[in-house]
């Protein structure tokens, strides 16, 4: 793949591969679609990660020890188990500007009709919303397990000391779960970088190019039209480098080595 990125290999034109050196990479710098895509990717990764973690954590803390806990946790997991193609299709129905239930509910709050797929700002929000719906369960699952694992005696001690529910959550459960948050964030980051199915099913990268996730861009360039493998490969190389860099950074700062027990045990 790295090899091809230096060539001008275009399947639809049936041309021979010609070596064009770093041309593909140069083209990338001046391609405004790439800029839009990077902008969107950064947006979705940051906001998605923060919101999903916060919501997953919040949900886990809310549900724990409530009555009907098992039911709630089953329902919370549900979105994650649905194939993304299916969920994309369902949300497309829900977000329909004229007939969709989402706009219907919003109209009760006095919000005017929103063109989810036609308005640049709302299209991005739409993708964010669907991603949150689909993947918060994932964060929830991991964090819930962590929260549940808080040692009982610590909590007992706190109760004896007169701590309120909120204080227990904040000072005992939360710190204990932080390492788990790290792992979850790491896993999710990797997936977010590869965001594709949702964009494909719902917005098709539109309106304009505002919801072109990087993977979707690679798909359009390398697969959908023109099959410009050279350029697509160049883009993929960049994506890989970013992914590796980001993860190495995270691993280092968050001391994952220790988490995995790969250092020397004390």
């Amino acid at each position, binding site marked *: 793949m790295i090899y091809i990125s230096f060539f001008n290999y275009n*399947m*639809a*034109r*049936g041309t021979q591969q010609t070596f064009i050196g770093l041309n593909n990479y140069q083209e990338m710098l001046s391609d405004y*679609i790439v800029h839009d895509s990077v902008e969107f990717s950064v947006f979705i990764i940051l906001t998605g990660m923060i919101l999903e973690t916060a919501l997953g954590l919040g949900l886990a803390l809310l549900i724990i020890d409530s009555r009907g806990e098992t039911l709630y946790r089953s329902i919370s997991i549900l979105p994650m188990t649905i194939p993304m193609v299916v969920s994309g299709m369902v949300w497309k129905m829900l977000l*329909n*500007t*004229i*007939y969709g239930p989402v706009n219907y509910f919003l109209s009760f709050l006095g919000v005017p009709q929103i*063109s*989810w*797929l*036609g*308005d*640049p700002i709302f299209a991005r929000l739409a993708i964010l919303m669907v991603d949150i719906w689909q993947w918060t369960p994932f964060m929830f699952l991991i964090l819930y397990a962590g929260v549940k694992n808080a040692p009982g005696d610590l909590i007992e001690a706190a109760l004896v000391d007169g701590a309120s529910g909120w204080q227990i959550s904040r000072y005992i459960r939360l710190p204990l779960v932080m390492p788990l948050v790290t792992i979850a964030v790491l896993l999710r980051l990797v997936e977010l970088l590869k965001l594709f199915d949702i964009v494909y099913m719902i917005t*098709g*990268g*539109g*309106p*304009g*190019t505002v919801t072109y996730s990087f993977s979707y861009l690679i798909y*359009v*360039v390398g*697969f*959908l*039209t*023109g*099959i*410009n493998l050279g350029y697509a490969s160049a883009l993929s190389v960049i994506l890989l480098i970013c992914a590796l860099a980001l993860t190495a950074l995270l691993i280092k700062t968050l001391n994952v080595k220790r988490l995995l027990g790969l250092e020397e045990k004390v």
Partner: protein
Amino acid sequence: MEKEKDKPKTNSGSASSGRRDFLKIGGGLVAGLIIGAAAGWVGKPTEITPPVTETVTQTITQTASATTVAPPPTWPPSVEPASLTVLSSPDCADALKYAADVFTATYPKVSVDVVPLSWEALYPKILQDLQSKTGAYDVFTIDVMTLGSVVAAGSANIDNIRAANPDIVDPNLDLSDFEKGYFQYGSIWAGADYGLPVYPNHMFLYYRKDYFGDPKVQANYKSMTGKDLAPPATWQDCIDVAKFFTKKNNPSSPTQYGIALMFPTTHTMMYNVLNWLGPIRQSPTGVSKYGALDYYYGDFCTSDGKVWFANDDGANAVEMIQALLPYSPDPFGSDYGETVTQFGAGTTAMAPQWSVPYGSWATTLAGGDLEKAKSIIGVSMMPGISDSGQIVQRPVSGGWSMGINGSSKSPRQAYLFAQFATSKTMDKTHWLKFVMPPARTSNWDEESRAALNPDLFDTYKKSLSQLSYRPRITQEPDMERLGNPLWQDIIAGRKPLTDGLKTLADQWQALVDQFKHP
């Protein structure tokens, strides 16, 4: 220590619930399987007979035998057993499946499997298969403007197949029977035949005949604009009509919006803009400026391959579109499906669309009553412009041909099927049963006209000589990739008009320049 104490408990507890869980999983799988299998079994296509065709099928065989040559004793030919895979767009899938069933009745040793794929999945799949010479598909549907790229990738030259296998050529093939324009545009490349037209298709303006014919509505319109209400012939007129039918401007309007427009950043954009650009390009003034139309370069280019719209004419077209936007429910968020729903639910009074939604509209607007549908759904020519005293209307053309994979392992059988699916009888059946307009001029008869909606048929015939075309060049996919988002940015005003057109024109010009005109 705590952990060790806990573990044995969970393990034994899960042993009995394990069995329950197993049953649950099994149950779920079985449920899914049963639903799927039942649906598949019950839904297995048997003869579907909509109200119209019972008597008609008999007439078909009669007329067919009356006007066709008596087949020689060696017909149908004997071919070796084979198993064909047909890759089809969803538009053609049902019709082809029907054709496959009938085909297998005549050639029992050849099995045909029709695989529908959505447009986005279909095109790259075809290219990938052709390029890699895998031969996984024997026959596939070619979207007309992709002809250049599939030929370059390895679509088979059908002339050669016919020359090498004279025994499988149907004596009633009659290539001249195919409508000339479509045949030329959708199947001929550099003088050779690469496809057989199966579904010629272009866009019309549909409108609510019942509202347009309502005397109260007509009176209202006259008093508001001083003109008579009629399906608009030009985009200028269309603006007035659309405005009238939009409730925000006119509380007495029977519909909420005037016109269902679609300008999403999918391949819809690429063809839709031609409904506005085409008339300008092919008007007498346009032709004098830009030359005659070239079938390879299409309507986005001059006769010698220069992209022409980065000027006042282009800006004019965009402005006409922009003037219509307020009278449309959701132009930038709507694609095919959405606009079909909008018209079909009665939300808009007009809708520029292809020929196929007619069936679904007959269901939603007329409850499936075909007679009633004729009086509700009106069909007229796509509006155009007025130039030098003439009205120039140029709906964009599209449609499909049957192509054969150059690496197919059963080219004889593949050709036989493609030929069968586009034969005179099958062509007519496709129109009557599946609303696919006839590709053969011999099928433009009274019976076809009366079958669904005379408006539709007449407008179809009339527009055949008045179409606009997309570029067929091998770089067409790249033009789409760059053009689709950019057009929307321009129309939505996110990019300034002149700059935007210039940028797009430059990008496209770079691509067009790479094309070697045969």
